[in-house]
């Protein structure tokens, strides 16, 4: 299974303004690495980040993103399952655009990355004909990612609280939380925070629409509508 399309996308992210380096890895398998320092230093960096994310995994925290700004530059870690897209950014970078583009890239290649191994891969042997395949990055690959990367964050946290508040009138808190989670899973939404305002509104309504009693459902939908108006959504 070739990861060339993923590598092309990951490498194209380096063209974003202020991005000094990128690294894409899954566990100890480095899929793409283009850092402005030695490979050993880059591998050390990867090891520390793996340890950090493992710690979060052990306490069952599903991480999306970690941004660390140091005195001389920033690290942006965007993660999905075991795959990590790491950026080394200068102060000129638009961190939100980089995060969003990485999120789009991880989503677009989710199936391919899911099948990628987590263990370090042996260095590939040169092909018998002596001609190596060249993975070319193009501005087009970057524009495809950044065009989709417009929605960075939304009001899902506040909307979720509204939905829980409205559902709280007909069911318990845990039941409401389960219903919301089930609706998200059934709708195959990997990250509700990345949805557009319209999609967030639709998701909130689709949770309430699962209330079986017709009159209660209508009443709750009315209340949700009012709450969302209040949020300017």
């Amino acid at each position: 299974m070739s990861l060339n399309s993923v590598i092309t996308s990951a490498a194209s992210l380096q063209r974003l303004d202020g991005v000094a380096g990128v690294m894409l890895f899954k566990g100890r398998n480095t899929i793409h690495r283009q850092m402005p320092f030695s490979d050993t230093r880059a591998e050390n960096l990867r090891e520390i980040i793996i340890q950090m994310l493992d710690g979060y995994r052990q306490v069952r925290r599903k991480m999306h993103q970690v941004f660390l700004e140091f005195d001389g530059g920033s690290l942006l870690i965007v993660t999905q399952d075991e795959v990590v897209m790491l950026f080394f950014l200068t102060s000129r970078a638009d961190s939100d655009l980089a995060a969003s583009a990485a999120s789009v890239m991880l989503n677009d290649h989710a199936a391919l990355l899911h099948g990628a191994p987590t263990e370090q891969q042996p260095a590939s042997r040169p092909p018998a004909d002596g001609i190596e395949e060249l993975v070319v990055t193009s501005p087009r690959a970057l524009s495809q990612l950044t065009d989709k990367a417009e929605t960075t964050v939304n009001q899902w946290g506040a909307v979720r609280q509204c939905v829980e508040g409205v559902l709280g009138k007909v069911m318990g808190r845990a039941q409401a939380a389960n219903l919301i989670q089930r609706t998200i899973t059934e709708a195959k939404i990997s990250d509700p925070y990345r949805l557009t305002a319209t999609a967030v509104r639709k998701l909130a309504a689709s949770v309430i629409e699962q209330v079986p009693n017709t009159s209660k459902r209508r009443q709750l939908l009315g209340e949700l509508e009012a709450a969302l108006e209040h949020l300017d959504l």
Partner: protein
Amino acid sequence: MEPTRIIPISSARNTAGAQPSNIVRMEPDPGLIKMESFQGRETLSGGDTESAQRFAGEVKYVGYFADKLAETLGMRRLEIAIVEDRDGQTAISTGEKAGNWHGMISSNRRSIKQVRESLAR
């Protein structure tokens, strides 16, 4: 004319009664959590108890790995950390003194730019 000064509403007033016109008293940010270190003792203020404890835990965990990352990158110190998980966002900023941190825990997710602006306030 004296420049306008904005000071926390909780700070002590010099004289009871008259308020100089150049001073605007502001309500402190209710979500702001502070962790300060003095003579080896840590004090937490702001936020509710649960948020403050979570904030302290996050500061220690992120701080431990940030030290290792800074060493690898050849940098001196962490200035801002923003950690996002499924349930929300934790923002941490270093204070002027080593060992002092402030930030917030939120169930709503904001952009990195927005968080940086609110931490700088």
